[in-house]
């Protein structure tokens, strides 16, 4: 079974939703990200796993075009300027933010409009999504009148209202209770079942193991080590298949395969930061 998958992957490689090579980002002389490589196949659930401060958010921001890298190359859904494909991307940042005076359904419509969805259609979908998720009663309430959890759900619905092909979640589980974490996991699986590529960052291994087809691990135990080694050997991420000892394996979803043969550090269970 494993071999078949590998062969299939080599003979008919799936196109990449995200491809990044050697991304570098410095802030005021401090190198936050140094030489990140990433290949995310279309339709995959892809986890970016690493400790706090490892540069996960900065890397995702570069991939989305929120900030430009100081060096390196990125291609998102075939576009070298991510904003060109913004209409096909959804993004839920770690620090959630909505306009406090906006009504819930308007907030969803606005997030859709930012991604090119006509406002009237966004409003219609906003109301429907809120109804479907048990929040219909709050559609006309202002964001500031909602609880934190409800506001987070509204922002999640706004992230998905335009039916993106690629969804990026930055630490999506932080601040959620167990019930809502489970709900979000179901949302992510549902997206993937429809062929949407999902990439999310997390520092919780369990989430990555439960959900991901592939996990990019960033092993930077302490930032000083990262910085100290940066000049000698550029730290990077490589996709590592979910075959770490002790990891629970679930059968791959139909139509998704682990990308093979792309990384020199594809040692199963490798816990090193790959060096060039």
């Amino acid at each position, binding site marked *: 079974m494993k071999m078949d998958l590998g062969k299939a992957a080599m003979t008919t490689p799936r196109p990449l939703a995200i491809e990044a090579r050697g991304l570098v980002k410095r802030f005021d002389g401090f190198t936050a990200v140094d030489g990140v490589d990433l290949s995310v196949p279309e339709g995959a659930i892809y986890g970016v796993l690493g400790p706090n401060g490892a540069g996960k958010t900065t890397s995702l921001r570069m991939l989305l075009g929120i900030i430009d*890298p100081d060096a390196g190359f990125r291609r998102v859904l075939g576009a070298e300027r991510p*904003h060109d494909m913004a209409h096909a991307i959804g993004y839920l940042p770690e620090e959630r933010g909505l306009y406090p005076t906006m009504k819930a359904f308007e907030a969803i419509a606005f997030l859709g409009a*930012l991604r090119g969805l006509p406002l009237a259609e966004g409003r219609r979908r906003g109301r429907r999504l809120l109804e479907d998720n048990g929040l219909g009663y709050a559609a006309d309430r202002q964001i500031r009148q909602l609880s934190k959890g409800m506001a987070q759900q509204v922002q999640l619905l706004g992230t998905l209202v335009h039916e993106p092909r690629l969804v990026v979640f930055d630490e999506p589980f932080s601040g959620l209770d167990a019930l809502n974490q489970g709900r979000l996991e179901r949302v992510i699986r549902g997206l993937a079942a429809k062929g949407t590529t999902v990439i999310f960052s997390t520092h919780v291994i369990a989430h990555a193991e439960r959900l991901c087809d592939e996990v990019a691990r960033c092993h930077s135990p302490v930032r000083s080590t990262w910085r100290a080694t940066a000049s000698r050997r550029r730290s990077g991420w490589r996709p590592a298949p979910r075959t770490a000892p002790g990891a629970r394996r679930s059968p791959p979803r139909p139509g998704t395969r682990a990308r093979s043969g792309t990384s020199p550090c594809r040692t199963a269970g490798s816990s090193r930061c790959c060096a060039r």
Partner: protein
Amino acid sequence: MKTGRLSTIAAALVMARRDFTAILFSRSFVFFLLAPFFPVVVAMVAGGIGQKVQQSTARAELGVVMSAADGAALSAARDQLAREVDPGLPEIRLVRRLAPGETADAAAELRRSSAAAIVSGSLAHPVLTGTEDRIAAWQGPVALIAGTALQKVPTAWPEVTPSPTVTSNADRRESRAGTAQGAQTLLFLLTMVLAGMVLSNLVEEKGNKIIEVLAAAIPMDAVFLGKLFAMLGVSMVAIAVWTGVAGLALAGGQHLPDVAAPGVGWPAFVALGVVYFAMAYLLLGSVFLAIGSMAATVRDVQSLSFPVTMLQLVVFLFATYAAAQPGQPIELAAAVIPFSSPFTMLARAANDGALWPHFAAIAWQALWVAVSVRIGARLFRTRVMKSGTGGAPRRPGLLRRLVRNTQG
């Protein structure tokens, strides 16, 4: 329904629509609309108080310590002169009637009475006792009144038949200068208030963490443009409301002020005023937004925007001074310098009827608005999210794209 890629302009419109409606339907906008009425009320109250103070000053009396006959003659002469020549002549009050041969200490009488000064002696040799300022102010009037009382000036004044005209060239020039200065001041106040609003709006957005959601979806240039144009739209609504209320108040009171028609005529003047306001606002707004991108807190905003506000005040004073020197090199300089140009040209529209300089000035200002917005947007982009410079191919500039299309 499929979504499509938004152009920068379309994305800016999404942003502008959000900001426009959010501001328009907020409580702070109501206070913003009411804001100009507070200074008007304060000015009216202050004006009333000032008038009362002036009236009390005008009521300062000239005490007379003379013989009864001289006193009566002096009082009659004063009333006649006040009627025919100068209503502002000091009121006269007989403080003490002197008996023939009696003398009086005028300084002592001044201390005892409430008069501002004392005139004593005789009509031929009046003595004015009072403070130096009061003597300087009243010396001439006292001589005139005493002379009239002695009948050394004509007592029968020829009748002058009035033949009033609406205005004269001298009056028009003076009045237009007033119109120019008023328009400049209004433009300056509006620009400062609205540029300040766009700044606080941005800081609030950064505080709400929304900026990252925006930056992920649309280019920061679009966010910048959207905010700028939303506030321009809001300001146009505010101006329309203020103009309407002022018009109603004036029409209702049946008291239209005697404001001279500007050189280019009222319709063109109003149109030019709107255009120059837009230019001044866009120039200053882009500077303020760039400042906002560097500020994290309201305190940062205050400390960063203070020098710019002071600089803008200097620019305004420069434009006001230049407007008073029509045709001089300084007026040309003020019209050329981008930040003072809208103010100077609006004053010119009030003073002069030629229209072509305005077309040239608007083209020149539009060029600088484009440059300013461009630089502001770039600063905004690099400062708000601390973006880098590499990593992605840049979209060619508009000029390069035009050349390429022409060649292709």
